[in-house]
């Protein structure tokens, strides 16, 4: 069977669709585009725990675990002897372990806060504008200047301008306060060395004063480091001391200005190492400030 086609009969061109604009009936939310965000760079993988950390953690688990078991046995024994005795023992044990737990929680919070500073610093120093602005907001939110700074950050669309704002505003203010603490500590170091009866005690005093200074600067930045937090902070301070080494000359000048008091000058001249101790306190304050501040150096 063959198909035939009438060549004289051309198909009619389809009539064009009439343009129109119509409103739908139901309300609709504002349209939102699925913006293709750039892939966020992977973070550096965390290092596995080292030997001291593993050993320390193991010791802590053993001490706390075995102490817990011992305490449970003790509580059970006391309950066997009498309900009142049992409840009393349980209350004492619970209070004791709660205090230890609060202590650990505080340490963990302090360590976490320090890690948070590292994260914020990495984000603020990075090239990802979104992370940078988010980190700036997160840091500023806890500062007294938050009511004025947060709207300013929201208004600025330039990440570099945000960093400049942070450097010139809260970071500079915190640095000035840290340096004031450093000058006070330096003054006390000079006076303390003069008052100490032996060089050994003077060294001990300087060590304690330095530790206190680091904790004071941390408190200034809103951290309350415990024992481990302070150790971690000292480690960071030692690392950041390298970054503030360039300020050595400024620290010298500050130390000289500090001991310009005739009495202190006399003491610093007489006491070996008093001037050095004063200078170290000032450097330590700057290093601690750099360790606690997430704003990268300009």
């Amino acid at each position, binding site marked *: 069977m063959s198909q035939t086609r009438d060549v004289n009969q051309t198909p009619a061109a*389809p009539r*064009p*669709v*009439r*343009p*129109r*604009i*119509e*409103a*739908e*009936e*139901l*309300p*609709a939310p*504002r*349209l*939102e*585009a699925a*913006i293709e*965000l*750039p892939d966020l760079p992977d973070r550096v993988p965390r290092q596995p725990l080292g030997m001291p950390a593993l050993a320390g953690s193991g010791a802590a688990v053993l001490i706390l675990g075995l102490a817990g078991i011992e305490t449970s046995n003790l509580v059970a024994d006391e309950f066997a002897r009498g309900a009142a005795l049992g409840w009393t023992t349980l209350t004492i044990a619970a209070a004791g372990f709660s205090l230890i737990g609060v202590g650990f929680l505080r340490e963990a919070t302090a360590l976490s806060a320090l890690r948070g500073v590292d994260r914020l610093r990495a984000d603020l120093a990075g*090239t*990802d*504008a*979104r992370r940078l*602005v988010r980190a700036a907001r997160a840091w500023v939110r806890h500062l007294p200047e938050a009511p004025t700074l947060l709207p300013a950050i*929201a*208004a*600025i*669309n*330039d*990440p*570099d*301008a945000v960093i400049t704002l942070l450097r010139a505003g809260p970071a500079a203010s915190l640095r000035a306060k840290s340096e004031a603490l450093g000058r006070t500590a330096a003054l006390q170091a000079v006076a303390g060395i003069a008052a100490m009866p032996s060089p050994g005690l003077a060294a001990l005093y300087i060590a304690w004063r330095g530790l206190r200074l680091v904790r004071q600067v941390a408190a200034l930045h809103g951290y309350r480091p415990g024992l481990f937090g302070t150790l971690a902070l000292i480690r960071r301070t030692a690392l950041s001391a390298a970054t503030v080494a360039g300020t050595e000359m400024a620290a010298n000048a500050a130390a000289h200005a500090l001991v310009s008091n005739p009495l202190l000058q006399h003491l610093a001249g007489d006491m070996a190492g008093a001037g050095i101790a004063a200078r170290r306190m000032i450097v330590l304050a700057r290093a601690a400030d750099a360790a606690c501040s997430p704003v990268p150096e300009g």
Partner: protein
Amino acid sequence: MSWLGDVAGGVQRFVVGGAQVLSPWNLFSNTVRIGVTGLSRAGKTAFLTSAAALLLARTQPRFALAPLGAGDVPRFDQARHLAALAGDPPHWPERTDSVSMLALTAQVDQSPLPSRTVRLEFLDYPGEWLLDLPLLALAYSDWSERTLARLEAPAIAAITKEFLGFTHGLPARAPADEALAKAGTELYRRMLGRLRDAGFSYLQPGRHLMPAPGPEPPWIFFFPARGQGPFAQLLAKRYDAYVEQVRRSLASPLFAEVDRLVVLADVLSALHAGAAAFEDTRAALAAAAGALRWRFSWADALGALVELRMPPKVIGRVAFVATKCDHVAERQRGNLAALMRNLAQVPGDGVTTAHFAAASVRCTEDFVWTLEGRPVSAVRGRVLGQQVLTRSYPGEVPDQPPDASFWTHPFLALPQFEPMRLADGGRLGVPNIGMDAVLNFLLQDVM
């Protein structure tokens, strides 16, 4: 001997290209000035706002807003325009009424060499003023003759009748009277405004439609008129003063320094406005393009040397962009870019050109609409101030300048859609169509 012409053309292109690459600006300056030009209501401010937001959101290379130094040009308020788009409810940026500039810097990695700082300067100005540039090459009598010839077209007689009646009725020896000049200028301005509302673009002088801020100087009161009498001489003097002002405030300090260009046109609205308005848009684009500096001129270079300044730059790269392409479905955007290619061309060669269909700020989403029993690619979005979606199928976009049969079908007016929601206040960029392609084309040889 066509091969001889080809060889000569090739040598010319090589020499011109080499001169541009080795020009003092490329060797000693890392500043690239990009003029964002276009007819009024083409979306220049939205384009610049979106372009800046997209560049600032890029991570590689990283851009930052840069200070403008001690220049005269005000800063383009990108933050305010972006906030208007990001607001809830959103607003379109206000009409531009003065020249402004936006500067960005970027650190460009060129390892193993040290990284290089590139400064981008975007220039924004009222679209109405673009058509002042062709006036620089015209005497008052020539401009009057050409303008009146356009205004006498029958298609726009209803709008121009009043002004034409006035100017044609002026006596040949009319005195140089201030009241007469003011009355004629007011009539002319009113007529220009009505023509703009009707979709026409070739409207000169630009400051009649968008006056510069501040009190009006006496020379602003002029209009096209025929004749040689005292009144015509007064108008001619004022025209010359106006042209000199354009040269001093716009052409010499700003356009002479532009080395790449974005030309924006709202082609879809021109399709709606009808055959006369479409032809008018085409003529306006051609006039504006013809007034820009596309070729190196020895005369200009020598003139600059005499005045102890650098010779004016030559525009080396130009992007022609048909804006608001999100008002038609994706299927039609290729046609829109092709139509733009047919409408706008650079006079001469040696200039790298490209044509795009783009939406600086996307307002709609595509969907398939069944109309008269047939599936049609259409768009929908929320119109400003409304809570419901509006569906739009304005008509078919031709891929070349439309013929008479096209105008027998309607092409509907574009609804004023509201911008899509901007994520994080626009910090992550602005929803758009085709902007990356435009920016990459403009910057690919400097980044």
